[in-house]
C-alpha cells in the first residue's frame, strides 16, 4: 500500500505528535489562546490530540484589555463549548500593580507590555511549557525558532544559543524556573491555516470575515475606531468594508479592505495576496527590521 498523505494531514499529525510530547513530558503545560485564528487552530488540534479525553492542560489568555469585543465573546464561548479551563493574565492588573507603565502618545499600545504580564503569569502558575501559535512563515526571526524553544529564568530567548533539533526528538529538559516555549504550528503557512479551517469547519471570530466598520487611515493602514483608539487631528473617519487577517491588540492591529465574507472567499484572497499578513496589519512590526527579534528576546510570544 502506498497511501499518499496530504500536506494538511502531515502537518496535523506533526502538531498532534508535538502536543502529546508536551503533555507527556511536562508537569504544568499551558496553551496560549487569544481567540486569533492560529490559536483557535492550535486548540482544535489539542482537542483532537487527546480525544476522547479532556485537555490535560489549561489555556491562558494574555488580555491587554484592548481587545475587540467580538474576540472576547468568541474566546468565552469557545472555552465553554470545549470544556477547557481558562486562565486570564491581565495587562491592566500589571499596570495597576506598577509592574509596567502604560505608553503614551498617539501610537501608544499595550502590545509590548504583554511580555511582563505573560512572564509574571508563567512564574505565578509555575508553568513549565507554554504552547504558542507562532508560525515560521510569519516573520524572519520566527523562521529561526525551534519547536521546543528554551527560555532561561528571565524568560529570555537567545537565538544564537539554541538547542539543535534533529528528527522529531524534542529536548524539553530544563531546570526549575526555566521553561520551554512550544510552537506546534511552526511548519504551517497562513494558507495552510485557512485551508485547514475550511476542511475542519472551524469557527472563528466574525471579524475575520468582511463587515462594515468605522475606520481611519494611519501610516497607510486601516485602523478601527474603538474605545482604545481614536483618530488624531487630520485623520478622517469613514465607513468601509473590511476584515482582519490577524487579530491582536485593537490599538496596533489593522484591518484590510476586503469583501471576503466566506471561508472560500478568504482562501482565494490569501492565495492571491502579495503582502504578508504581519506586513499588512501589524503596526508593532514596523518599528525596525529586528522588532520581532527584540521582543522575542525579552520573552514575547
Amino acid at each position, binding site marked *: 500500500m502506498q497511501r499518499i498523505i496530504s500536506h494538511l494531514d502531515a502537518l496535523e499529525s506533526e502538531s498532534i505528535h508535538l502536543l502529546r510530547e508536551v503533555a507527556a513530558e511536562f508537569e504544568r503545560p499551558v496553551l496560549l489562546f487569544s481567540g486569533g485564528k492560529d490559536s483557535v487552530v492550535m486548540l482544535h488540534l489539542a482537542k483532537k*490530540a487527546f480525544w476522547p479525553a479532556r485537555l490535560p492542560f489549561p489555556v491562558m489568555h494574555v488580555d491587554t484589555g484592548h481587545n475587540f469585543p467580538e474576540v472576547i465573546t468568541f474566546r468565552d464561548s469557545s472555552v465553554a463549548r470545549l470544556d477547557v479551563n481558562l486562565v486570564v493574565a491581565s495587562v491592566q492588573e500589571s499596570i495597576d500593580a506598577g509592574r509596567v507603565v502604560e505608553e503614551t502618545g498617539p501610537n501608544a499600545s499595550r502590545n509590548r507590555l504583554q511580555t511582563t504580564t505573560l512572564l509574571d503569569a508563567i512564574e505565578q502558575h509555575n508553568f513549565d511549557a507554554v504552547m504558542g501559535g507562532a508560525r515560521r512563515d510569519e516573520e524572519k526571526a520566527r523562521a*529561526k525558532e525551534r519547536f521546543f524553544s528554551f527560555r532561561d529564568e528571565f524568560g529570555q530567548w537567545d*537565538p*544564537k544559543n539554541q538547542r539543535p533539533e534533529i528528527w522529531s526528538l524534542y529536548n524539553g529538559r530544563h531546570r526549575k524556573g526555566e521553561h520551554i516555549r512550544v510552537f506546534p504550528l511552526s511548519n504551517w503557512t497562513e494558507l495552510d491555516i485557512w485551508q485547514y479551517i475550511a476542511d475542519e469547519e472551524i469557527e472563528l471570530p466574525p471579524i475575520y470575515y468582511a463587515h462594515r466598520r468605522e475606520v481611519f487611515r494611519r501610516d497607510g493602514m486601516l485602523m478601527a475606531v474603538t474605545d482604545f483608539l481614536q483618530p488624531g487631528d487630520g485623520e478622517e473617519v469613514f465607513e468601509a468594508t473590511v476584515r482582519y487577517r490577524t487579530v491582536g491588540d485593537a490599538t496596533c492591529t489593522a484591518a484590510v479592505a476586503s469583501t471576503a465574507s466566506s471561508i472560500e472567499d478568504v482562501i482565494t484572497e490569501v492565495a492571491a495576496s502579495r503582502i504578508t499578513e504581519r506586513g499588512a496589519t501589524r503596526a508593532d512590526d514596523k518599528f525596525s527590521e529586528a522588532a520581532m527579534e527584540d521582543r522575542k528576546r525579552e520573552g514575547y510570544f
Partner: protein
Amino acid sequence: MELLRFATAGSVDDGKSTLIGRLLYDSKQIFEDTLEALEHTTMLRGEEGMNLALLTDGLRAEREQGITIDVAYRYFATPRRKFIIADTPGHVQYTRNMVTGASTADMALILVDARKGIIEQSRRHAFLASLLGVPHLVLCINKMDLVDYDQEVFERIKAEFKEFAAKLDVRDLQFIPMSALNGDNVVDRSANMPWYEGTSLLHLLEEVHIASDRNLIDCRFPVQYVIRPRDDKHHDYRGYAGQVASGSYKVGDDVVVLPSGFTSTIASIDTADGPVEEAVPPMSVTIRLTDNLDVSRGDMICRPNNQPHISQDVEAMLCWFGERAQLQPGVKYALKQTSKWARALVKDLHYRLDVNTLHRDEDATSLSLNEIGRVTLRTTAPLFSDDYRRNRATGSFILVDEASNDTVAAGMIV
C-alpha cells in the same frame, strides 16, 4: 497535495540564496512588502540590486555579520506540492546545521559552482546527506552561464562526483546543470542547454516519488501517551496514542507490546475524526487493544514476527554538537530515542571520521564540536531499535548533557 521536505546545502558563493530566492519568487511566495524591505536593506548596506540572502538571514547577528548562522525554514507551494525548505548554511556550525536540515528531509540539494567543480565542502555535504539517510540527492551544477553552458564541464563534474558517491550510500542521485541567476533549468527547461535531457529542478521537486521512501514493512509504534478519559461516557476507554514510526497497522492485527512481551490484537485505531481501518507513517493515531495490558509511554507496539533489536548495548555513528565539552569515553548522558528517555554511558570511541576524506582515525580519544565518530554505548534500559539505514525513526537518538541540558549529539544506530 503532498508535502516534500528538502534541505539545501552549499558554500558561501555558489548561489544557494539566489536559487531559493528564484524558487520562492517564481512560485510567487515572496511578498511585495518583503521585497520592498529587502531592496531597502540592500541599499542601506551600500550594495546594489537585491541581496536575496537577506531574505533568509532572520537574525540581527546574521545581518550584522553578513553570514547565516542557523538553519532557516522557508515555505512554498505549487499546484502539485507543498514544500518545506531547510536552508542550511555551509560554514559556521556546518555539521550541526546540515544534520538538522537533513534529518527530516526527503531530498537534499547540493550546489556546486560549475567554474570550481567539486570542492571539499561538496563532498562533506554529500557525505552528511548520505549518513542522515536522505533518500534523494540532487547535485545542482550552478553558474553554467559562466562556463558558456558547456556540456563538457557538466559531464566532468558529474563523473567526478559519481566516483566519490560510489563510496557513499546514496539511493537516488540526480545531476542538473543550471543557472539560478538566469533561471536556466530552475523552473523551466533551459534553451541554452539543449544537450541536457533531464528535467528542471522544480519539475523534479514536484514529481520525485517519495511515498515509497517510508518503511511500510516493519511495524513500529512507540507509545507516546496513554489516553484514559475516566468520565462516564468513556469509562473503560484506554488508548495508546502515538505516531506510526513505520509499518502498517490494521484493525485485527496480532501485536506484541515491548518490553513486556505480552501479545494482543488491535481492537480499533482511533482518531478524533472517527476510527480508521489502517494506520501508516506519519499518522498520529490512538490504538486500542482487545486485552487489558499494562502499557505506558516508552513502550512499543510491534508485530510478533517482526520485532526490533532489544538491547542495552548500542553501536552508533555520533555527530557531536557540544560546544562546552568534548565527547569522551566514560561519560554519561541522557538519551532520547522514539518516546523513551534513558541514560547512556559512552563505553568506547572506535574512530573519528574525517568528513572530507572519509579517513578513519582510530587513535582518536575524543570528539569535538562538529566531529563524527563511531561509538559503543551502554544504556540503563533496553532500546527498541532498528538500523538507521532501515528505519530513520527507530534508528535515531539524541544525547543530552545532564548538567546543562544542552542537546550535544545526534546518533544513528548501525
